[in-house]
């Protein structure tokens, strides 16, 4: 069964460094998402992406964040200058279409900023 995959599973970085989190969505899916979960808190929506454009974003998704689909398979989340409060689990998800009700989630990348 097709799955969303994410790499790396755990990333440790120093404050101020740039990080890129990678996701491979399910191959025939057209909508892509990033969510994050700070330890002990709710899963929060960051951004959705369709047709090489951001289609929706939350107030968390500020200028420090960017997303890209650099090729036909990968979907990346870049954090330009990490802060301690960026430490969280980051989940990628994809769905077949805008009307596709189900979002399929990856296993997450745990980002630790020291």
């Amino acid at each position, binding site marked *: 069964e097709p*799955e969303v995959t994410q790499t790396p599973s755990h990333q440790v970085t120093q404050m101020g460094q740039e990080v890129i989190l990678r996701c491979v969505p399910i191959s025939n899916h057209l909508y892509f998402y990033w*969510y994050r979960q700070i330890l002990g808190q709710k899963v929060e*929506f960051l951004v959705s992406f369709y047709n090489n454009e951001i289609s929706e974003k939350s107030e968390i998704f500020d200028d420090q964040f960017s997303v890209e689909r650099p090729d036909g398979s990968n979907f990346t989340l870049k954090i330009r200058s990490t802060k301690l409060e960026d430490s969280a689990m980051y989940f990628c998800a994809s769905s077949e279409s805008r009307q596709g*009700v189900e979002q*399929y989630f*990856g296993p997450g990348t745990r980002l630790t900023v020291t």
Partner: protein
Amino acid sequence: AQTVTQSQPEMSVQEAETVTLSCTYDTSESDYYLFWYKQPPSRQMILVIRQEAYKQQNATENRFSVNFQKAAKSFSLKISDSQLGDAAMYFCAYRSLGAQKLVFGQGTRLTINP
């Protein structure tokens, strides 16, 4: 803005028994989707069951069923004949009809006692 509340941080149940996880939400919209996602340890979130708000009939998927009370804005998940493999974190989530983002509750950690 919509909010989702899961008031039970942890629940436990004996194997083969029935357990109900609670979820309430707040919205001013009349059409939306509600979901229960399951996240086993170190695994991705998978969709357990979904409910369209316009449907009066409660959704059922094998041993999983919901009690959807639209007026009360309540959406509980019942797991019948609990199995060890049901042990996981369970998230309730809301999605507006015209939006893509999921709004999550805090999660309920379910333990199954053999």
